[in-house]
């Protein structure tokens, strides 16, 4: 029976499996591994890039994504369908990224003090043939305070509405709009200043 359900899920294609079905499978001990596979298929790439934009280095993004998925398994019973599954996943991924950055900052610095070192990582991690403006954009994002960075990335790259960002980050919609506005201004200023 278990095999039948798994096979049918595979044949339907992971992307067509509804979030409600995945959430139900996640809380069912017989299907939890299958649910994790479906989440990785459906949201793995989005989560990877969301994390990578925050932590920049691939190795760090790898650790964070792995921890994110382990936490998805560990805290699966805390998921409430009051919010979309994707918001819950993004929230866990965001927390893991911030945790990694906090560990890196240590006791003496704050996450926002890591801007310069993250900016340096952008150049190191960039592909050799990457567009210079895209590198500058990532450098500008790396220099933003963590909250502005999160809001900007979720809106600009992931096309999330302010309501969805509120579900992930927790701040009020007005605060999020202000954060986004400041982020855009700082990014524009940085690119204009550094573009040849």
């Amino acid at each position, binding site marked *: 029976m278990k095999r039948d359900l798994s096979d049918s899920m595979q044949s339907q294609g992971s992307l067509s499996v509804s979030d409600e079905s995945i959430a139900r499978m996640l809380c069912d001990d017989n299907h*939890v591994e299958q649910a*994790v596979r479906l989440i990785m*298929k459906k949201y793995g790439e989005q989560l990877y890039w969301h994390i990578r934009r925050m932590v920049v280095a691939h190795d760090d993004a790898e650790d964070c994504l792995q921890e994110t998925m*382990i936490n998805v*398994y560990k805290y699966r019973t805390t998921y409430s369908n009051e919010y979309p599954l994707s918001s819950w996943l993004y929230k866990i991924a965001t927390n893991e990224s911030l945790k990694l950055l906090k560990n890196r900052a240590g006791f003496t610095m704050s996450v926002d003090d890591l801007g310069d070192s993250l900016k340096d990582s952008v150049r190191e991690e960039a*592909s050799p043939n990457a*567009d210079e403006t*895209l590198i500058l954009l990532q450098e500008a994002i790396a220099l933003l305070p963590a909250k502005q960075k999160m809001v900007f990335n979720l809106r600009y*790259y992931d096309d999330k509405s302010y309501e969805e960002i509120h579900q992930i980050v927790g701040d009020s919609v007005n605060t999020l709009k202000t954060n986004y506005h400041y982020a855009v201004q700082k990014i524009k200023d940085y690119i204009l200043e550094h573009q040849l």
Partner: protein
Amino acid sequence: MKEFDLESLSREMPFKMPEHFLDDMTERVVSQIGKQRKQNRDRKIVALFASVASAAAVALLFLHPFGSSLNIPDYDNISQCASVDEVLQDMTAEELSLYSMMSNYYGN
């Protein structure tokens, strides 16, 4: 004042994700979850065994209170017996040693 249009930029990232990364990650996560599930199952079995064992120990204590099998002689009534030799004949070696120890103590 120069203006820069952020919206006109490509959403492409200047970084690359290694090939097969997500597939490898999926396998790693699933295997780690499998190990955690096994650990949780083992922990539940050990906890169950421990609670059954402690329940059995408590039950044993109530059914056979410690010392009940020793059949300790009633020293107050020994003097009423027909003869000490008769009583001593029926005693086990263990009871005899206990009797001699108590006799020495009470100076019988």
